[in-house]
């Protein structure tokens, strides 16, 4: 009976099971349907006789009581108390291959013990209970216990009751030093300082421990620690995860999580804001940022993917993550067919899916940066700065306006005083990269000799459909760059011809080009012509032949077609978008700029081009207007004022303003322009965050046959499975879903949440399978405790700090973690908690602890991710194009939740210690003990530098002698002093290494030079090196690697 993993209860009997006969066992135990029978049926029978309608054999269903008790034409499956009239029993015990169940070919077979259990169950009346987790928790009364002194709160009643029943006794309370280290690690992820330890030791009051707990829960470190755990659950990362695994920017969501925990945002609000913050009335920026939770999934930007395929995956990820995190359900198993074990149909899966399928997203993700929808998400400080800049700009705008009459007056005065016949012109020079005026012959003409023709005061270049100009390494723009082109063109044919390009001179190759097409202008920004480019062309523009037109093309670096603007003769043109999808830079590094050519021999231009000007900025429409004015400034000056066109006046005014206007007016003009530019740059530099948004018109959702994106079946409406809530019609969108998740009637959220918190503190959940509360999941070791905690969390109004306080104030938590012979014999897994667990620290805690005890830790909260030490070349080795640019200075020593997380190449000193990979939602990680971990703590520069700095600290803070220093370092790392034997071992080690290093000062110098942090004090090198070996030993102690 104890062979199924879902039966944790009777494990105490395992040792006996191996020798005892079945009947003996059964005679002693009480048979429990939920514990002993349902798991057998679920694991062995449901595949063919369960919820999956398509796969159901013989129309027989064993997951529900009614059908299981059906009469079946006089051969009832189960007849209480009568084996011979129970087809179930007859089948599972039959040796006839045609009758035998499961069939001999099945992968799952029943053991003799399981058969015996079924027999006994039927004999004893075959009672039935429905699956426990789908009924809302009822608050149990506290059980009576013999030892009435021990319990400090409700938790202890349940734990003790069970221990008493199993004949185990509780452990003595932990020593204060052990306890404060444990609780500090558990609540803040960091160990206590010696001062904190001393305060606790000195506090004799009964509330001393509670005061520590209150202090820890108020510490902002609490929020960071809790956020770290939530990042694993939420599959948070700094990259998108597929193929090239480009960067994204989600740290504003991480900041939100840290603040939410520190502000003790109630878990119901925490839930609602993350699931549907955008749909709350008048959603704040903060509430919108919260919805980043459901955008943390991976995004595929690989070239050539079929977007629809991956858009489905994103929605499925949201469904699976939401179901796992809040409901503890494996809803994803119903994607391709009805769930095999739990009562969820495939249609219900897609109803749930529909709730998350209504966001304006695209299946192909953006390769570098956030994928829509995303919002600008300034921090509080940034918002203040933004407001200031906007105010300043407004002020300057008003001043510019105020100056206008004076400017005009000055211009009039200037005109009356100055008179010259000298021809001159002035164009826009701001941001100019290169101008080709063709007054002189540039080098680089190919396929013929250069030819020019007169144009205006000067000359234009003439092309004949072959000859063109190769202008060299000019204007190498990529897709993040703002740029503009301005030129005059006079074609002999306007059907086609490339005016300017930077690309390999092959038809449709990658790079950019501006060309004539069917009389209009086409602009192409191309990585791959067919599927990775922005290609637009004007709709109504007509560039006449044998006539001069002015053309300007501007691009704002936004990577979308709307970022391109084409002007003809100063007028913005409407454009048709041929493709609006670019995911890689189109910069053609190896190609030259070509004038009159691009797209191969068929792309050559015929006609004249003049005054080609290239800018590294987006020209404004006003600037384009000025550029499109053919009349020179000198000539405009000659035109009578009232006969000048508006553009002519603007051109003149612009020239005058920059050259002759009164100084004050010029200054304001420049300040205004700079202020505009700064504001724009600042706005563009602000962090963004991907968020959830709702489409105005609901995207229809279809059942996908076999879960495949291209096999839609019937349409479904949004909703959740019937088994979870009878009135499913009330859940129609994310907001109603979010509210239901934390409604008191929800059977799962509170249980699943308290279980995960329990797991965080005790290492294992009350339900071991914290990801699966369904039929195949493990049963709770303490079902009543689970329900009591769940109802308690609700009673506490979802206050997580209060809840955690309850847990750590329990006697259960405060027990010693010393393991006795009895523990190993009777409860090796410590599921009954007759002792406090002794657990290896998580990856984050381990690194953060080393940083804290050495004093290296930099406690700046929030902000973008940082890149601490990592062995050279790790990214480049497999990720090809990306390089890890290690942080410098303080950013090397931030808490690990701020470490940049590249999904395809996880930070090695996190991965080695079982950190969740962040590719998908993980609510339960393994906790291994490997040689690679030993190597990391011994040799990773992170720990090595910490050891050296800890050694330095010992010298600084304990001046007496090396014994005092060892004592101090030991205290910093363990919260206790070494005993005499330990001190002796470490002291002798120190003395041994000291002699060695004194004889080999080069080695000493090398050893104390690891890491970027500078040696702060002039210490004897050999002494520091020897102490570094000692402190490294301390950091490698099992006690330090564990919480006890």
């Amino acid at each position: 009976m104890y062979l199924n993993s879902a039966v944790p209860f009777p494990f105490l009997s395992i040792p006996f099971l191996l020798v005892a006969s079945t009947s003996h066992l059964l005679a002693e135990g009480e048979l429990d349907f939920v514990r002993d029978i349902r798991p057998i049926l679920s694991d062995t029978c449901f595949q063919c006789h369960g919820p999956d309608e398509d796969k159901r054999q013989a129309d027989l269903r064993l997951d529900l009581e009614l059908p299981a008790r059906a009469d079946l034409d006089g051969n009832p499956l189960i007849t209480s108390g009568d084996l011979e009239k129970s087809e179930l029993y007859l089948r599972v015990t039959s040796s006839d291959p045609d009758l035998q169940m499961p069939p001999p070919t099945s992968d799952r077979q029943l053991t003799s013990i399981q058969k015996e259990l079924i027999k006994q169950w039927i004999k004893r009346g075959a009672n039935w209970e429905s699956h426990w987790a789908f009924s809302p928790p009822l608050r149990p009364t506290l059980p009576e216990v013999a030892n009435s002194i021990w319990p400090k709160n409700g938790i202890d009643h349940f734990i003790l009751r069970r221990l008493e029943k199993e004949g185990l006794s509780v452990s003595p309370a932990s020593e204060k030093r052990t306890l404060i280290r444990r609780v500090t690690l558990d609540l803040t992820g960091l160990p206590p300082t010696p001062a904190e330890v001393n305060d606790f030791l000195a506090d004799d009051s009964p509330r001393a421990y509670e005061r520590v707990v209150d202090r820890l829960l108020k510490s902002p470190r609490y929020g960071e620690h809790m956020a770290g755990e939530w990042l694993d659950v939420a599959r948070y990362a700094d990259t998108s995860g597929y193929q090239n695994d480009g960067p994204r920017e989600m740290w504003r969501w991480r900041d939100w999580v840290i603040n939410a925990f520190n502000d003790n945002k109630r878990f119901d609000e925490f839930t609602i804001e993350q699931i549907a913050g955008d749909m709350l009335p008048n959603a704040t920026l903060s509430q919108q940022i919260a919805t980043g939770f459901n955008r943390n999934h991976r995004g595929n930007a690989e070239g050539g993917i079929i977007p629809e395929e991956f858009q489905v995956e994103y929605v499925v990820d949201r469904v699976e993550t939401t179901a796992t995190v809040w409901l503890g359900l494996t809803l994803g198993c119903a994607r391709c067919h009805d769930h095999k074990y739990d009562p969820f149909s495939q249609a219900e899966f897609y109803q749930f899916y529909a709730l998350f399928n209504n966001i304006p997203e695209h299946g192909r993700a953006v390769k570098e940066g956030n994928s829509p929808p995303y919002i600008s998400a300034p921090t509080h400080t940034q918002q203040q700065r933004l407001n200031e800049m906007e105010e300043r700009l407004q002020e300057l705008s008003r001043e510019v306006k105020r100056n206008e009459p004076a400017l005009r007056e000055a211009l009039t005065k200037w005109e009356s005083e100055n008179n010259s016949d000298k021809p001159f012109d002035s164009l826009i020079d701001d941001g100019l990269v290169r101008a080709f005026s063709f007054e002189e012959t540039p080098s680089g003409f190919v396929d013929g000799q250069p030819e020019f023709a007169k144009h205006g005061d000067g000359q234009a270049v003439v092309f004949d459909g072959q000859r063109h100009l190769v202008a060299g390494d000019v204007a190498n723009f990529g897709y993040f760059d703002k740029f503009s082109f301005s030129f005059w063109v006079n074609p002999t044919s306007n059907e086609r011809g490339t005016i300017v390009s930077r690309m390999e001179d092959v038809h449709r190759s990658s790079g950019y080009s501006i060309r004539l097409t069917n009389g209009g202008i086409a602009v192409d920004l191309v990585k791959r012509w067919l599927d990775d480019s922005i290609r637009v062309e004007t709709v109504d523009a007509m560039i006449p032949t044998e006539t001069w037109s002015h053309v300007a093309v501007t691009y704002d670096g936004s990577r979308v077609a709307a970022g391109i603007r084409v002007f003809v003769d100063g007028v913005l043109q409407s454009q048709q978008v041929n493709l609006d999808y670019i995911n890689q830079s189109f910069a053609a590094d190896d190609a030259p700029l070509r004038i009159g050519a691009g797209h191969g021999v068929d792309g050559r231009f015929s006609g004249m081009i003049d005054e080609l000007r290239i800018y590294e900025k987006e020209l404004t429409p006003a600037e384009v207007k000025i550029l499109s004015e053919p009349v020179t400034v000198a000539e405009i000056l000659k035109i009578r004022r009232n006969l000048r066109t508006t553009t002519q006046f603007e051109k003149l005014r612009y020239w005058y303003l920059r050259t002759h206007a009164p100084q004050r007016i010029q200054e304001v003009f420049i300040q205004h322009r700079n202020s505009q530019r700064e504001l724009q740059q600042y706005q563009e530099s602000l962090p963004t965050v991907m968020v959830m948004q709702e489409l105005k018109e609901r995207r229809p959702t279809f059942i996908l046959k076999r879960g495949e994106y291209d096999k839609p079946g019937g349409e479904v409406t949004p909703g959740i499975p019937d088994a979870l809530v009878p009135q499913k019609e009330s859940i129609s969108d994310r907001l109603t879903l979010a509210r239901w998740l934390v409604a008191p009637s929800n059977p799962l959220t509170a249980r699943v949440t308290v279980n995960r918190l329990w797991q965080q503190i005790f290492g294992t959940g009350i339900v071991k399978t914290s990801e699966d509360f369904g039929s195949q999941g493990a049963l709770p070791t303490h079902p009543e405790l689970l329900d009591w905690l769940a109802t308690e969390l609700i009673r506490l109004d979802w206050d997580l700090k209060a809840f955690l306080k309850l847990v750590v104030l329990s006697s259960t938590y405060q027990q010693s973690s010393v393991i006795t012979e009895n523990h190993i014999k009777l409860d090796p897994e410590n599921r009954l908690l007759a002792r406090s667990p002794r657990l290896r620290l998580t990856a984050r805690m381990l690194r953060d602890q080393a940083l804290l005890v050495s004093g290296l830790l930099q406690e700046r909260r929030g902000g973008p991710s940082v890149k601490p030490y990592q062995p050279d070349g790790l990214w480049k080795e497999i990720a090809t194009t990306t390089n890890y640019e290690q942080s410098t200075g303080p950013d090397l020593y931030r808490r690990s939740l701020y470490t940049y997380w590249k999904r395809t190449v996880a930070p090695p000193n996190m991965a080695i210690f079982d950190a969740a990979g962040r590719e998908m939602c993980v609510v339960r990680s393994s906790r291994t003990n490997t040689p690679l971990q030993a190597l990391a703590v011994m040799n990773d520069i992170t720990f090595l530098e910490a050891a050296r700095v800890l050694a330095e600290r010992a010298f600084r803070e304990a001046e007496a002698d090396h014994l005092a220093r060892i004592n101090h370092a030991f205290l910093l790392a363990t919260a206790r002093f070494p005993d005499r034997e330990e001190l002796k071992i470490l002291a002798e080690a120190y003395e041994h290494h000291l002699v060695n290093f004194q004889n080999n000062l080069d080695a000493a110098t090398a050893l104390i030079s690891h890491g970027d942090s500078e040696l702060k004090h002039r210490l004897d090198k050999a002494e520091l090196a020897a102490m570094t070996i000692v402190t490294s030993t301390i950091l490698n102690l099992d006690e330090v690697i564990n919480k006890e």
Partner: protein
Amino acid sequence: MDPIQTANLLHTRRQLFNRSAVGLGTLALSSLLSERTLAEASEFPSFAPKAKRVIYLLQSGAPSQMDLYDYKPHLKDRFATDLPDSIRQGQRLTGMTSKQDRFPVAPSMFEFSRHGSSGMRFSELIPHTASIADDICVIRSMHTQAINHDPAITFFQTGAQLAGRPSMGAWLSYGLGSENDNLPTFVSMVSGSGGQPLYDRLWGSGFLPTQHQGIKFRSVGDSVLFLSNPAGLTNSTRRRFLDDLSKLNHKKLIDVGDPEIATRMSQYELAYRMQTSVPELTDLSHESKETFELYGEDAKVPGTYASNCLLARRLAERDVRFIQLFHRGWDQHTNLPRDIRKQAAATDQASAGLIRDLKQRGMLDDTLVVWAGEFGRTVYCQGTLTKNNYGRDHHPRCFSIWLAGGGIKGGMTYGTTDEFSYNILENPVHVHDLHATMLHCLGIDHKKLTFKFQGRHYRLTDVHGNVVRSILT
């Protein structure tokens, strides 16, 4: 029982690279003692295995089958003609070519000739592979469902297109455990610059305990992360350090009785042994001149495919269970003739050299070698087509791979494709089938190697897979 004694009893079974039949390595104590993990994986190999280990030569980026193995002589006459709709059958294409105006046939420009006693054909690009024709089985009818690199290579590695499942090597580590106390069970190595990126998940452990993940041997810096002692810390200092650490931990073990402490102590010792065993392994200086002639001069350059092939043999000699090479650069959308020449030159000799070397050492019989990309390439041209230049897009519907060694019939081809190498005509082999067949060679029924996660008994082959018996000895 005395806690130390208990711990000793336990930890002998619990080293990462342990010998235990269950391959459970260092799960937390609790899991080790729990009935479930044992029940799920205790019975392997369940029948006599032909192979004890696998060397998998993964050709990342997808090599073009019709330029290497799948001889299509009639295509020369169809140069630049449209791929007939009857062949194309409206099947999905990648976004990179689906909007092409035409799908012109690009015949291979390379010559093919017959080799080995079976007379199978190889292109002129791979003369060395051709010379081992009698030792390998070429499958021309491989197919997959993914059409882009990331999902496709993930599918080959884990049996699923999306992240989250254990890789093949992790499954074997879980199922079979290790035969070497001082080296990892599963080693991966990477070569080839540029090309498609790779990902940790390709050798990851998915939902299996993390000690089953592959250890990536690196060609720069420490071959295993954090292996070397830091500058200034000599081997004797490390020894003394470990002795002191061990004394302190031992004292702790007596004080608190946690068997995990004993495990940690043994892991530190194992780490120390690895500091010797790994450099010894990666040191090729004692390999003979003849050996380098076999693998090619490249084998002397760390980080090359040839060097990794030689390392693979050394790992195999030390009974590492699963050795996987990833060689990048086969993704030839354009300029295929130019690039495939380089790619073939970098891999052909060493692949063949490895087979010869294993054979001459008597190891080919119990080593299964697999050479495969993640999908094939299209017969139609991507981009500009000339007689001497063309490109090919991704093609999942048929492609060629080869297997050799433990349990595989040499000198045969399996499966046929149509005239265009576009569809399979007979004996299709799906990725799940390949996995099932590989596991079979190792003595594992692919339906029996399971791990319960999220309520399901997961397999490498999901709910699919058939052993391809015709290619087995």
